[in-house]
C-alpha cells in the first residue's frame, strides 16, 4: 500500500485539535445536573434549618399532638395517621385493581380497537389534574355515597386517592408486563403451560420489580396530594379525634400531612411558619420511609427471581 489513496487525509494516530462541540455538550449536561441538585439542596436545607428547631424543642410531642389553633400546642398526629391510612387505602384498593387491570390488558385482552381505545384513555386519565379527582371524590364518595362512606370521612378521601393513582398503577404495571420477553412466554407455552400458568409462574415474577417501581411512584404521588383531599373532605384547621377508635376515625373526620401543611402555611402567626417547616420534614420522612419499604421489597423480589 502506497500513500496515494488517503480519503481521510493524514492517518497518524496523534490527536489533532480539540473536540469543542463535544466538550460544550459535556459541560451543558453537567450544569443541568448541578442546577437540579442546587434547587433540591436549597429546598431541603431551608426546610430542615427552620423545621429542626421545632422538632428538637417539642420532641415527640409535636408528633403526637392533635391539630390546634395555638402554635405551641399544635401537632401532626392526625396528619400522620391520615397520611398512613391514605397509603393503606391506596395499597388495598389501587394496587390490586391496577395490577389486575394491567394483566388483563397485556396478557388476556385481544389486540383490537376497543383495547387500544381503553389504553389511550387510561393514559389520558393519568394526565387529568388531580383537583378534578377531588371534585369526583366530593360528588361521589362524599355526597352521593355519604351513607356508605360517612360523608367527609377518611374513607371517602382514601378512595378518592386510590382512584387518582389507579391510572398510574395500570400504566406502569402494563409497561412492566410489556417488558417481559416474548421468548419467556413462548418457552412456557412450549412446554404445555396454560395462559394462567404462564402468567402466574413466569410473567408476573418477571414483571414484579417493575410493578413495584410503579407502585412506589403511585404511592409517593398519593401521599403528596393536597388539592383533591381538600375537596374530598380533609379538615383544614383543628378538629378533635379525642379517644375515637381506628374504625370510628376511618368513618370520621380526618386530615393528612399535606393538608395540615397547607393549613399552617396560610396562617398569619409567625410561629406557624416554623411548624410548617417541621411538618414538611415529617412528610418527607414518611414518604421516604414508604418508598424505602417498597424498594426493599423490590430488591428482595429481584434477588428471588434471578
Amino acid at each position, binding site marked *: 500500500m502506497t500513500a496515494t489513496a488517503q480519503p481521510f487525509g493524514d492517518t497518524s494516530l496523534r490527536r489533532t485539535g480539540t473536540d469543542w462541540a463535544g466538550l460544550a455538550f459535556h459541560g451543558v449536561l453537567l450544569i443541568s445536573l448541578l442546577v437540579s441538585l442546587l434547587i433540591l439542596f436549597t429546598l431541603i436545607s431551608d426546610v430542615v434549618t427552620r423545621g429542626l428547631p421545632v422538632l428538637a424543642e417539642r420532641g415527640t410531642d409535636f408528633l403526637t399532638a392533635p391539630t390546634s389553633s395555638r402554635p405551641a400546642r399544635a401537632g401532626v398526629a392526625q396528619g400522620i395517621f391520615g397520611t398512613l391510612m391514605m397509603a393503606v387505602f391506596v395499597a388495598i384498593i389501587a394496587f390490586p385493581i391496577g395490577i389486575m387491570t394491567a394483566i388483563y390488558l397485556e396478557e388476556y385482552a*385481544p389486540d383490537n380497537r376497543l383495547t387500544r381505545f381503553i389504553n389511550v384513555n387510561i393514559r389520558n386519565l393519568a394526565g387529568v389534574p388531580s383537583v378534578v379527582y377531588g371534585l369526583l371524590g366530593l360528588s361521589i364518595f362524599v355526597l352521593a355515597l355519604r351513607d356508605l362512606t360517612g360523608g367527609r370521612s377518611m374513607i371517602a378521601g382514601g378512595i378518592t386517592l386510590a382512584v387518582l393513582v389507579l391510572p398510574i398503577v395500570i400504566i406502569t404495571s402494563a409497561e412492566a408486563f410489556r417488558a417481559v420477553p416474548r421468548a419467556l412466554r413462548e*418457552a412456557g*407455552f*412450549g*412446554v*404445555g*403451560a*396454560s395462559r394462567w400458568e404462564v402468567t402466574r*409462574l413466569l410473567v408476573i*415474577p418477571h414483571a414484579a420489580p417493575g410493578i413495584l417501581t410503579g407502585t412506589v411512584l403511585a404511592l409517593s404521588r398519593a401521599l403528596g396530594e393536597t388539592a383533591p383531599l381538600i375537596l374530598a373532605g380533609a379538615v383544614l384547621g383543628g378538629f378533635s379525634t379525642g379517644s375515637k377508635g381506628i374504625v370510628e376515625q376511618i368513618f370520621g373526620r380526618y386530615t393528612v400531612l399535606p393538608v395540615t401543611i397547607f393549613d399552617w402555611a396560610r396562617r398569619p402567626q409567625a410561629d406557624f411558619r416554623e411548624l410548617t417547616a417541621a411538618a414538611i420534614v415529617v412528610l418527607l420522612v414518611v414518604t421516604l420511609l414508604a418508598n424505602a419499604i417498597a424498594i426493599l421489597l423490590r430488591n428482595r423480589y429481584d434477588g428471588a427471581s434471578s
Partner: protein
Amino acid sequence: MATILTEPEAATPAAPDKTRPTAPRPEGPAPAPADQPAPSVAVDLRGVSVWYGSFRAVKNVTFDVQAHAITALIGPSGSGKSTLIRAINRMNDLIPGARVEGEVLYHGENLYAPHVDPVEVRRRIGMVFQKPNPFPKSIYDNVAFGPRIMGYRGNMDELVEGSLRRAALWEEVRDKLKQSGLALSGGQQQRLCIARAIAVEPEIILMDEPASALDPRSTLQIEELMAELARRYTIIIVTHNMQQAARASDFTVFLNMGEDRAGYIVERARTTEIFTNPKNQLTEDYVSGRFG
C-alpha cells in the same frame, strides 16, 4: 459424520402408510422392527395455509412427517419454515391475527378442530426455539417446570436426571442443579431447553433453528443429540444450514417463497434424495447454493 448419517436410518421404523395408499410418497423406508408398533406417520399436514391478517405466509402445504425420524424444513428466508413449524403445535395461536386453514392431523385428529385444547397439543408436541430461552430459574426447576404444572406425582429427581441425561447435559450440570439456567453457556442452555421439552414426554419435538445461535461445536452436539432423540421422539427441525439438514435429517422438505410472497413446498423427499438427486430444478439450485 458417518455415524450421524447412519444412526437415524437404523432408527427409522416407518412402515408404508396403509391408511393413505394414494398418498405420493418417496421410496418407502425400511420396514418397522416388530417391537415398534408406533404409527408411521406422526403428523400429517393437508392443504395447510397460514395467514397473518390478510397476508398469506404459507400456501397450501401438504406433507406427512415420519414418526421416529428427523424431518428438516429448509428454504430461503421468507419461505415460511418457522411459520409452518409453529402451525404444528398451535404456537401461532399466540400471534394476534394469525390463523390456519387446512388440516394438521395428529393421530387422525385435526389439531385445529374446535374441541382441541391448544395447551394439550403443546404438551404432546414440544418445542425448542431458535434462541435458547431457559426460564430465569434453577437448572432443576427448568426441567421440573413442565412436569410440575402437569401434576407429575412420580420421583421428580429421577425425572429431572433422566431428562438431563437424554439431553446429554447431565454430566456437565449434575453438581450445580440449583444454579440458574441462565448461567450456562449457549449450547448448554439449548440442551437444557431440550431437557425441559422432553421432561413432559412429548411425542414430537419441533426445533426452530435450534443451533443457529450456537458455535460449531455446540451445533454438532445438538445434531448428535437429535440423532439420539429420534429413537424415541419424532423430530421436525427448521434449519437455514443446508449442511445441517444433509448431516442430521432423514427427510427434507424444501420450501420456497412464491410470487405472492407465500411459502409453498417445492419438493419433499428423503434427505439423500434431495441432496443427490433432486427432482426439481429449484431444489437443485438451492441445495447447490445457487440461490437462497
